[in-house]
């Protein structure tokens, strides 16, 4: 019975935890959905392309009719601040309205960055989507994107201002007489509570995205990139043969005589030198007219057993290393003996 109860409690615990986690995930997803109007993959590609290839922009001056207000606001209050008299009627919930900008001469196949500021008297984001288009569909984006929403207190006071960045690109269809439509959809629960209309105004700024064609600067940046890449490759390079050659090269140029008394006396040193430096070479032999050779151990052992040789070498290296360390320690400890001052020499 206790076991059954434990199983039921475990199942209930798992279900409760799952619901809790799902709820957290869904709430986060909804929160993002409420405040972000995600671009389509095509638009995201365009945005990335613009942001990557456009390090510098220049600004097109704003027309004077850039400010709009809702009709049901304290017009005198806002007009004191902005000195504008154009109004925008916001009359229903979930309103999807359009407005036009006809003061810009958009060029064909250009990239533009539209910065839109919207101010409301509420501390929440009123906008759920923005769509930019023209009468002749001269803009490649069917929707738009705002990447950052920053509420800030307007200089007028009591109005939170939100900034939206929209990127779009014109195509060959656009003409000088085109009108840009900026369509905005508002959050019904935040903007039009209890049938009241909140103060709303907007302004915009369109600047042309200009690619930097300074080839000299691009070349310099590429040179720096290449230099960093070369340094990184050099650091990552595990081939130390050049360093070894340089270290050995310091001692090059010394001549050795192999004749007379010198050859006898230096023979052990030459032997030690060859012991350190020589590689294994198969010894050729000729017996009864047949050529033989005594191969090196590496070529004798099949490749399947070469790991065993490696293990053996690791083990012998460890034993020799231990032996060397113990003897060096004994040698150093022997220095403390005041009676011992004999010096060993290599008997040539």
């Amino acid at each position, binding site marked *: 019975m206790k076991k059954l109860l434990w199983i039921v409690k475990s199942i209930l615990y798992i279900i409760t935890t799952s619901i809790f986690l799902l709820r957290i995930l869904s709430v986060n997803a909804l929160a993002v959905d409420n405040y972000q109007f995600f671009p389509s993959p095509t638009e995201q590609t365009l945005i990335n392309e613009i942001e990557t290839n456009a390090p510098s922009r220049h600004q097109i001056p704003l027309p004077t009719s850039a400010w709009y207000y809702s009709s049901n606001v304290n017009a005198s209050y806002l007009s004191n601040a902005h000195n504008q008299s154009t109004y925008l009627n916001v009359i229903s919930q979930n309103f999807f309205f359009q407005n036009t900008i006809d003061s810009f001469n958009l060029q064909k196949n250009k990239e533009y960055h539209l910065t839109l500021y919207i101010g409301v008297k509420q501390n929440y984001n009123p906008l759920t989507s923005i769509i930019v288009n023209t009468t002749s569909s001269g803009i490649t984006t069917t929707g738009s994107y705002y990447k950052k929403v920053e509420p800030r207190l307007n200089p007028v006071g009591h109005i939170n201002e939100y900034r939206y960045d929209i990127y779009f690109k014109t195509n060959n269809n656009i003409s000088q007489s085109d009108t840009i439509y900026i369509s905005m959809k508002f959050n019904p629960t935040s903007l039009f509570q209890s049938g009241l209309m909140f103060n709303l105004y907007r302004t915009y700024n369109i600047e042309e995205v200009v690619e930097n064609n300074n080839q000299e600067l691009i070349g310099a940046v590429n040179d720096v990139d290449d230099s960093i890449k070369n340094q990184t490759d050099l650091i990552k390079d595990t081939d*130390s043969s050049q*360093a*070894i*050659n340089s*270290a*050995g090269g*310091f*001692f*090059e140029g*010394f*001549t*050795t*005589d*192999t*004749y*007379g*008394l*010198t*050859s*006898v*006396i*230096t*023979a052990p*040193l*030459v*032997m*030690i*030198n*060859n*012991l*350190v*430096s*020589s*590689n*294994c*070479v*198969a*010894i050729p032999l000729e017996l009864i007219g047949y050529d033989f050779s*005594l191969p*090196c*151990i*590496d070529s004798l052992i099949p490749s399947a057993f070469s790991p065993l*040789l490696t293990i*053996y*070498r690791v083990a*012998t*290296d460890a034993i*020799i*290393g231990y032996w*060397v360390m113990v*003897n*060096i320690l004994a*040698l150093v400890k022997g*220095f403390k003996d005041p009676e011992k*001052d*004999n*010096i*060993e*020499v*290599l008997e040539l």
Partner: protein
Amino acid sequence: MISAILQGIMSLIISLVSIVLAPIDAIIVSVLPDISNAMSQFGTFMNYISTHIGWVVSFSGLSANAISLIVMFYGFKLTAPLLFYTVKLALKWYNRLKP
């Protein structure tokens, strides 16, 4: 790297020995050429043996690092006491001689 340094040190010592013995060798070559040839043959024989020392090392199964470590140890064993006791002797002299 260790092998390269060892080779360099050995080359340096051999060269220094050759410089010291060069006048004696010159005298032997000029005065007793047969003895000089006999001693040269000994050196040639040792060189021949040393060309196959790599093969012997290969069959011992030891790695090049182990061989270098052994040679380095003996180099340390032969040089470190010399330096230590020389410094010790110099200090002893200084203590005796100082006013």
